[in-house]
């Protein structure tokens, strides 16, 4: 008898979709390849593009620590804005993520690996 599906099997693709949208919002264009920039531009044109397989393929393996380098003049880093918006958007659609205990650094983390760590 095959293993029964877990709730996380449904939730993780949705978290990854939200992370792709927020990556488009907060990324540093200097740190992206042309293929990744093309995927981000698709999301800028339509938020529905975050569901497209080609966009997912291009963005799911991006090193978030590098792609989210940057901060505001008041010292708020882009990775904190990314995490805050991911938590908020996820909550709005009914997915509860951790509010503490996120990784110390997003360097080396991808949307695939991070999404598996942050479900509450």
């Amino acid at each position, binding site marked *: 008898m095959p293993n029964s599906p877990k709730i996380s099997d449904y939730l993780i693709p949705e978290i990854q979709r939200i992370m792709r949208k927020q990556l*488009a919002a907060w990324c540093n264009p200097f740190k992206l390849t042309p293929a990744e920039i093309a995927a981000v531009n698709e999301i800028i044109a339509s938020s529905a593009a975050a569901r497209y397989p080609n966009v997912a393929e291009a963005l799911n393996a991006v090193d978030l620590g590098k792609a989210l380098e940057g901060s505001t003049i008041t010292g708020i880093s882009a990775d904190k804005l990314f995490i805050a918006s991911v938590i908020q958007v996820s909550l*709005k659609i009914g997915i509860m993520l951790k509010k503490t205990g996120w990784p110390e650094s997003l360097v080396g983390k991808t949307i695939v690996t991070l999404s598996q760590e942050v479900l509450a």
Partner: protein
Amino acid sequence: MKNLTVWFILGAFLILPAFALADDDPIRLVDGEISLTAVRTELEKDAVGLMAELFPKLNTARYFVGPGGVGYLGPKIEIRSGSDDAFQSLLAKVSGFWMITPPDDEDHEPDYTRHWIHVFPFSVGIEADRDFKTPSALVEFGWTPLGPRKVIDPQAPSKSQRFGLSPNRGLGVYLQGGYKFDNIDESEDASGMSADQGGDSDESQEKPDEPIARVKTEATYAFTMMNMISLVPRGTGWYDMLNQEFYYRLEALLRFAIIPNNFSLDFLYEKGSGAPNFNEGDQYSTGLTIMF
């Protein structure tokens, strides 16, 4: 004894909220940036300067979602010091931000991509001179607007930066309120042994044992070539509402990236020391910066 009291308060400001809000992880890492520089000071002396920004990671992620927005809270330390009369200050605070939810996108989810985003940084902490003579307890509340994300041109990513989402391009406005403590050792002061001069003198009209109320603005717009060379002019102004006095700090940083985002050679000109001394002198420095 007064010093000990102030340091105790400082420690409490930083440590207690962090532990109260964190999970059970102990201190593991610190993020930050340290610059060691050769300085030509206001009194034409050659000095050594140190600037450090540290973000202690006490299980850093403390996010909270509320009606109309989402926020974050964490500790931060900024140290600016040096030998002789080099500019100096120490800022230790618990800081965070509140970000207003933008309108929804086609998925009926907050659209952080195509709208202006309004972020309100806030902090509670202590700023002081190097000798901790007149530490000030400070509450700060600000506003930073972030522009909408434009379509990115792969040929010119520097022109596709989101306004405000670069430390080198942005605008910030704050209200600051607090209290300036008197921690001066009067026996030393009377003998003249500790009289400050040059870059470490206190030229502020804010008096010890009195409240502080300021409006602070920051603005910068950098010019970058190939992600290797950058010229970063930055201006900061303070309006002291209680004494009706205006202070400013201007700086121009020329940075050559040796290893981008890790190691750079910096040339810096500064006019005015900024809070808390509000010294008007100028200072030149050359040095290496390590980002970690």
